[in-house]
Structure formats: C-alpha cells, structure tokens
C-alpha cells in the first residue's frame, strides 16, 4: 500500500479534542439531554422473577395516577419482529427477541410493562404502582459452568499427546465473574414519531446498525428511521447493539403521537443491556525443561441467555500469542436465566489472556524461570494459527522496553521477598494482544471556498476521540489546519460509517477519507478544466493532480489551493465521497493483524490489615502509528483503570433464589475510583502498520485492558504466594 507522500504535520500531534470545549462546559448534548416539545417520560417495569410466566398485570391503580398517559404492556401494540443478526447489512442484536413478545420470563428485569407520563416523577411512581403476578419457577443462575456443547476453535498438531509427553506441565482453571459495562451514561432513547418518520436520539455505538434493527423490529422502512448519537457517555460494548428499551420508547412515541424519553435507571443497567458473561477456563501447558512450549490447550465456557447464544471468544489471541507446535482451543456455552451477554471492552481476548497469561506465569514459577524470559523464548515468528506472517509484531520490544522502564531486572523472584516502607511488594507482568482490522466505512468530504472542509460519516465518538482524529486526518490530507475542519458524525443521514467497536473505527476511516478527498479533488479538476479563465482551462484532466489540498499540474509548475480554485470557479463548495472495504472477519487473510503490548505491575501488600493496592504500572504498546498521543495514552490509561477494577473489584452477583443481580448499583458493584489508581506510565513503540491503512494507524481502545488483570494477579502471587484464579480477587482469599 502507498506510503504517505507528504510530511506529517497533523498526525502524531498531541492535541486537545476539538469537541473538548463542549464537554468541559456541559454543552455537549447527550441522548437524555434532548428535551423536545410535548415530550413524555417513560419508565419500564421489569420482571421481579427470573424464570416463569406473567399471569396478570394490574394497571388500574397506576393508570389513574396524576399525569399518566399510558401503561403499556404486551398486546398494547402490534407484535414486533425478531432479528436474525448478520454483520453485513449490518443487522446486529445480541438480544434478538423484541420486548413484550410473549409472557415467558427468562431473566430478572425483563421488561413487562411501560409507564408513560408527563414527568419523570409521575412515570416512575406509576411504574412502581403496576402490579405484576407471576407463575414463578426456580431460575438457574448457577455460577458453576458445564458446557452444553463444545466446539473446536483452533487446532494444530496433537496437543494432548504432546502434553502427556511434556517434561513440565501446568493444568489450571480460571474463572471471571460477570462484569457489567456501567458507562456513567445509562442507556437512553428519545423517540420522536412525527406520523411518518421516526427519529431516535440514542445511546448507540453504531447508529447505522441501530437504525436497521429498529426499522426491522418495528416494521418501518429503513429510510423512515433516523438515529442520532452526537455524544455518547461511553459504551465499552454495552451500546454496540440495540437493546429492548429503544423499541419500547419508539412504540410508545408511535402509539401516543408524542416524543418519549426513556432513560434506564442504574439497576436496569444490570438487566437487559448486556454484560461480560461469567467465564470458566482451563489452560494446560506443556513445556521442555528449558521453557519451550510444546503444547497449549485452552478450553472455555461462558454463560449465555436462554434464547440467544452469545459466545465469548476467549481463544481469539491464543493461537498466535506463543510459538507452540501443538495447540487446541475449544469453546462452550452454558445457558442461564440471565439477560443476554454482549461484547465488553476486549471481548474474548481480554478474559482469554487473563487465563493464558496467568498460566504462563504459573509455568514460569514451575520452571524456576523469569516470566519475561519465558515470553521472549516463546515468541513466534509468524501467526502459527493462521500460518501467515504478522503484518507488524513488535511484542519483544514492548517486553524489553517495559522491563527496562519498570526496572524488572531488580526483581527478586522469591515470594514476598521485596519490601518498601514496611509493605511487601509484588511485581508481575503479562503480555497482550488485540486484533487490528477495518470495517466497511463511508465518508463524505466537502471542500469550501473559505478554505475550510467538512468531513462526515455516520460513525460515532464514544469518548475515544473520533471527532478529533477525523479532523486530524482530513487536515493532514488537505494540508490545512485542524481548526479548519468541521466534523459531523453520529447521524444516519450521513454516509454509512463503521461501528465504534473492536478498536477498528480509526483504522476504518483512513481509506474512505482519502478516497472522498480524492473524489472531491477529481470533481474540482473536472470543473477547472471545463471552466473558462481558470489556470487549468482546457488542460487534460490526467495531467493534473490533487495533493495536499492543492490542484497541481503533474509537471509541478503551477498549483493552487482548493479554496482559490473554488473562488475562481465561483462555487461555494465541492464534495466527494469515499468507501473503504472492511477486513474484519476475512476468512483467509494474507497477514495476521494485531496490536501487542506488555504490562508491568507493582502491588503493595500489607498482610497485617489485608490491604492490597496497585502501586505502579508501566505499559508499552505496539499499536501502529499513534495519531494523537494525548488521546491514545488516555485510552490506554483508562483501560488499565478498568483492568484494576476487573482484577480487584468488579463482579455482578446473581442471587441464587431470585436470579436478581443483587448488587445492581454503583455502591455494591464497585468500579475503580480515583484513589484506586496509581501513577501509570504508558509508552508506545511506533511502527506504522501500512498494511492496515495509509497512515499506519491501528486502534487503541481495547488493547490496554488485555493482560492487565493477569499482570496484577501475577504481582499478587509474587507478593503473597497466593495464586488468584478467580476474578475479582477477594481480600479474604489472601488472609
């Protein structure tokens, strides 16, 4: 692929976000900030059983309460369609059943009614006054998992035989509690049916997909549905695909003929908007006495809901992570009376790497070997799973640079041997990987007479910095200042963009932006050639080029910026559109594209009061060219913060009797606070990956979480001698 042709000016600059002034002043408008004239408020009623059947819904009292416009339940609007997901249209939903579809309750919190009133207070009181009767059955939320079906995900050699013959073996089981995304902005929908078209202000990481699913579910033509998500209060995967609150709000607006706002409560964020499921994994490693891996077996099972099969692809990184001739990866599912799981930051690889990187550490202990050396020794030269080269893999450099910056060579391998200020220190490390790919994505560009440009795409900024990085890209390609670029995203009326997920959006935007600019340039050239009294009147179009925002003759004698060209032509603006082809999910890729990294973590341990804290983290990443180091470092730091939560704090607890996620709030489901986070030291080794796009950029949204929990629990082992194989760690395990 072509190398960038001009000097890099905008790319790689640490710069404040272009949408920052709106965010720091409270003027960025998130979904629930939309207040439309005549808007009503809707509050859902969730089931208080996890398995059984609704036998009656008594709305009499609620219906008579002040301000109440409707209490909707099954049968109050025409049945909606189920979704058969596919990634191509895209038409993705993890919970494929539309709301109120039948009377069967399959998980706690499943919506059974909707109260709509003039104010939030009235709607909430009415929702609380709805009385639902059930024929309840005992739910199955058993945390002990046995796969109901198993499939082989990846296999090479004979892993069992090699394991049986290995000089040193490790067989360990790991579990991860269900984690809930808990973006601080809860899911929300403001639905406005005008009698012909439906507009949805939506907390969506994928507006085009959301439009398709909602239109299909409601039986509306897709062009009659518009989804808008200008600012999203983060998502972490929880807002990737639509959930039931959105069609409910839409149905209420259609039925009542007024705009309806529906904002989920915090407890509802634990019910019907997905979560990372509970996962149990078994890792078996076989190695020579020198530490060369000869066999790797990775078997995992995750919970899924009764109706939908969500598979947590824990083995995503396993086949390419280490050089090992014999490998077998299998996955399985266990159905529970729990809402449908979904992608949560680094789905698959993040929990998978907790297991494999813990196992590598355990193996290192068995071998009496430094875990860093074990990693370096087993570094592969090509992707042994796919049998193809890596597009760009610099994990060795991440490991060695991280070790150097951390001071790893000073590590005393003996458990509990290192001390500071009366505290025991634990040092642990882990490597990580996350896929790098592109998605189909379209971008339009408008070049304007005043020298400004507008780039637009129905993509989203979920806090990852898309607004800013799009402006940087366009500015770079057009040779203008970032301030001169206007970015419009988050609206299905724009050219169909990519989802904000899988760390793929940034990489997906490069080619279509380039193409859109080229198209605009081509159109401009055509006008200049055809026009009278332009410097290029009558020239052959193929003798002209559009580079760095300038029209130039290929002999480079004359050139003119696009603004001047538009002024000469006396036209206000000229547009172009570009579409990039995705690589995600390609069956036979020629290259293995991934980002890599390494975490080095220090914990402090005070056994006398059982106090464990993360005290120092050094992380190094190979994530291609970094377009905006300020935003990129922030992404990584935030992911490490989430890793601290994953390792030490977070877990949704389902009550065995009722099936309720009983800690469904932010006081009982604890995430990391500012005080939980030590100084973080993040570095990038910058090797542009031009195989992925012309700027060499990959995404950085997820890679920081991968491996973080394992590095922490490996450090805990070094401090305490206790191997944490179930997350979150509980301090009683360390007593």
């Amino acid at each position, binding site marked *: 692929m072509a190398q960038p042709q001009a000097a890099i000016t905008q790319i790689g600059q640490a710069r404040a976000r272009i949408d920052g002034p709106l965010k720091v002043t409270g003027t960025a408008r998130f979904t629930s900030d939309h207040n439309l004239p005549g808007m009503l408020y809707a509050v859902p009623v969730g089931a*208080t059983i996890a398995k059984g059947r609704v036998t009656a819904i008594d709305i009499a009292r609620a219906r008579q309460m002040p301000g109440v416009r409707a209490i909707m339940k099954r049968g109050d609007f025409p049945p909606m369609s189920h979704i058969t997901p596919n990634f191509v249209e895209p038409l993705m939903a993890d919970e494929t059943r539309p709301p109120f579809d039948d009377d069967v309750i399959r998980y706690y919190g499943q919506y059974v009614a909707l109260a709509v009133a003039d104010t939030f*207070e009235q709607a*909430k*009181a009415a929702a*609380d006054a709805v009385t639902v009767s059930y024929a309840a059955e005992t739910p199955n939320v058993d945390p002990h998992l046995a796969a109901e079906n198993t499939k082989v995900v990846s296999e090479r050699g004979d892993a069992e035989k090699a394991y049986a013959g290995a000089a040193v073996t490790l067989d360990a089981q790991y579990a991860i509690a269900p984690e809930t995304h808990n973006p601080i902005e809860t899911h929300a929908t403001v639905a406005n049916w005008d009698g012909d078209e439906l507009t949805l202000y939506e907390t969506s990481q994928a507006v085009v997909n959301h439009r398709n699913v909602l239109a299909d579910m409601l039986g509306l033509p897709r062009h009659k549905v518009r989804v808008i998500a200008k600012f999203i209060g983060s998502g972490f995967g929880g807002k990737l695909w639509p959930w039931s609150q959105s069609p409910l709000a839409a149905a209420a607006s259609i039925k009542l003929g007024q705009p309806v706002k529906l904002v989920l409560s915090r407890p509802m964020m634990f019910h019907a908007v997905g979560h990372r499921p509970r996962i149990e994994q078994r890792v078996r490693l076989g190695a020579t006495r020198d530490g060369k891996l000869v066999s790797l077996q990775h078997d995992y099972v995750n919970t899924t809901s009764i109706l939908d099969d969500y598979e947590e692809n824990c083995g995503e990184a396993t086949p390419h992570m280490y050089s090992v001739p014999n490998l077998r990866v299998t996955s399985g599912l266990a159905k529970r009376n729990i809402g449908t799981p979904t992608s949560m930051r680094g789905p698959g690889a993040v929990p998978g790497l907790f297991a494999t990187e813990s196992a590598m550490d355990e193996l290192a202990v068995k071998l009496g070997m430094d875990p860093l050396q074990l990693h370096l020794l087993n570094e592969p030269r090509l992707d042994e799973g796919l049998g193809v080269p890596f597009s760009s893999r610099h994990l060795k450099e991440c490991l060695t640079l991280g070790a150097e910056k951390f001071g790893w060579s000073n590590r005393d391998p003996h458990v509990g041997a290192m001390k500071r200020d009366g505290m025991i220190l634990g040092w642990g490390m882990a490597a990580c990987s996350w896929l790098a790919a592109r998605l189909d994505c379209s971008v339009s560009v408008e070049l304007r007479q005043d020298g400004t440009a507008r780039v637009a795409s129905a993509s989203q900024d979920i806090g990852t910095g898309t607004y800013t990085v799009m402006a940087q890209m366009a500015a770079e390609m057009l040779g203008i200042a970032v301030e001169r670029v206007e970015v419009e995203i988050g609206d299905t009326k724009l050219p169909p963009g990519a989802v904000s997920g899988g760390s793929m959006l940034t990489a997906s935007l490069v080619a279509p932006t380039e193409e859109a600019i080229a198209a605009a340039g081509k159109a401009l050239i055509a006008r200049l050639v055809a026009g009278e009294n332009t410097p290029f009147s009558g020239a052959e179009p193929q003798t002209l080029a559009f580079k760095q925002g300038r029209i130039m003759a290929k002999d480079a004698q004359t050139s003119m910026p696009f603004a001047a060209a538009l002024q000469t032509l006396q036209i206000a603006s000229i547009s172009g559109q570009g579409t990039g082809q995705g690589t995600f999910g390609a069956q036979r890729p020629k290259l293995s594209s991934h980002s890599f990294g390494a975490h080095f973590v220090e914990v402090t341990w005070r056994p*006398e*009061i*059982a*106090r464990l*804290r993360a005290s120092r983290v050094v992380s190094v990443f190979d994530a291609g060219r970094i377009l905006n180091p300020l935003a990129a470092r922030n992404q990584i730091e935030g992911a490490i913060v989430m890793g601290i939560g994953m390792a*030490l*704090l977070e877990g949704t*607890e389902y*009550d*065995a*009797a*009722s099936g*309720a996620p*009983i*800690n469904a709030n932010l*006081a*009982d489901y*604890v995430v*990391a*606070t*500012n*005080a*939980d986070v030590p100084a973080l030291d993040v570095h990038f080794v910058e090797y542009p990956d031009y195989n992925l796009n012309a700027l060499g950029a990959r995404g950085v949204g997820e890679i920081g979480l991968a491996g973080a929990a394992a590095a922490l629990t490996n450090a805990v082992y070094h401090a305490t001698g206790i191997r944490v194989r179930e997350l979150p760690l*509980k*301090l*009683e395990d360390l*007593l």
Partner: protein
Amino acid sequence: MQTFDLVRASDRPAAIAAGAESATAQQGASVRFLAGGTTLIDLMKLGVERPERVVDINRLGLDEIRKAENGDLFVGATARNSDLAHHPLVRADYAALSQAILAGASTQLRNAATTAGNLLQRTRCMYFRDLASACNKRKPGSGCPAIAGANRMLAILGTSNACIANNPSDMAVAMLAYDAVVHVQGVAGGRQIPLADFYVLPGQRPDIETMLAPGELITHVTLPPPKTGERSVYLKLRDRASYEFALVSTAVAVTLADGKIANARFALGGVGARPWRVRKAEDVLRGSAPDERAFRNAADTCLDGARPQSHNGFKIELAKRCIVHAFKQVTS
C-alpha cells in the same frame, strides 16, 4: 417515589408536633424529618421509605458545633459531616472522629449529610434496599434472603435469625468509642440517651432500630471532654480505596501511663447489627503492656460470640487484625 407533603418546620415544637403524628419513628414512619437527605431521599427513591409527610428541619438552628460549658463537645443535629470532620476542636481532641467521618462516603455526601442523619442511616443490606426481596427489617415476618444469599458485607455480631444486617456508619463508631450521648426532644420533653444504648438489636423485630419514639427530634450529640494524653485513630478496611462502606473498621482511643495502658476505648464498625463496643475487651487491656499479645487478647474478647454467615467468616480475622493494627498505630 410516592408523593408526600413537604413542609418546612418553623420551629422545633412544630417539627416535633408534626413528627408525633406518625405511629412510629422506626421503619414505615409516616412522617420523616429531612436533614441532609442523603439517606432519606435515597430510600424514598427505592420505595423503602414512604413517608406521607416530610418535615424539613434544616433551618432550625441545629447546626452548631462548640465546646459546651461543662467541657463537652456539643455537636448540633444538622451540623454537616464535613464541618464536623474539619472543625478545629474535633481535629485536635477527637482525631478518630474526624478520621472516621472523612473515611466515609464522598466529599459531596459529607457536605450534605448531618450528625443526626448519619446516626440514623440505614443498613446497606442489598435485600433491605431491594423492594422485590423479602426483608424482615422492612416487613417483619417476610423472611431474610440474606442469610442464604449475598451476605459478605453483613454483620457477624448482634445478629438474629431474623436479620443479619449491619450498621454502616463510620461516624457512629468513633462517637461510640468517645462515649457520645444523644440528646432528643419530644412532645413530653427532652431526654439523653448514651449512644451505647441508642441502637436496638434486631431480635425478631429488626424494623425497630433505635430508641426513638414518634416526634422525638435529635437536637444534638455531646462528647465528653477529651481524656488527658489520650491518642486515637480510626482504621477502615474495605475493598475499594475510597468511597465505599467498611468491611471492618475500628475507632481506638488509648491513654498510656508508665509504659502501660491506663485506659483504652474502642468500637467496631461494619461487623455489628449496631456499632459494636465490648467493655470487657477494654478491661483486658487496662494495665497491660501495649504489645501485640495484649491487643490480640482484646480483639479476641471483642469478637467473642461472633456468628459468621456463609460468606463473611473472614470478617472475624479481619476485624482482629484491624483492631491490633489500630492499637499498634496509636501506641507506637
């Protein structure tokens, strides 16, 4: 939230008269006093509290913090937790109280929360706070799902077979160690209740949590003058580094004389149906050398009779370590 009358009390008698119209001052009261609101509004949103009338007592001049004529510390009922924690008298003479308050909640909550409100805060038992669950504290006789359910955070001391909820306050733990007295005014006049007697153990009626009768308004709390040479500390252990309720906490106050413990007072938080203090455990320390063995003895005595639930047995050992460490810290 169900609707209610909101009235601003013009004076204390009016507030007391309004409160007295409720049949109970305990769970299910039809009249509630509103101070900081950090407990009441929270529980009203959950539907756990459903008062018909809410009486705002924020403008009754109950927010004073001063040294009383007899040397006591006088703490007004609506003095904000932040003001109390940062008050020079408290920082100087009641260090464990200042630390306890600052270890609780967040700055925003402490800026709103009041002395009386903190004493009256309710358990964080997840079943108590979930209206869809049975709960003997909300509805005596309905059952206690916590006993077979999620009870890691809950009490190991003072529980009954009807309720294993714990008292979540940090402030009250320190106040208990400092021998605080709660001053209340009711229709029939005022009375003083030592904090040690203020809370009622659950027994078969976990809905009854305090000695308060309908209409009784906490006007202030007093702490006896500081003991000469006494040093104190509050130590709180929890999963998260901040902004979380205690797994275990302790307020410890010690006076040393001639290298021996002349007097020790300590109370435990996070582990009891009410803030927990065992005089016998303090007696164990009197006259002994301030060493680990003595502290461990006191801790053992204090935890005597602890009844662990399925997921919180670790709290016994954790509480002991907490006590020992706090004593070591304060005597070193």
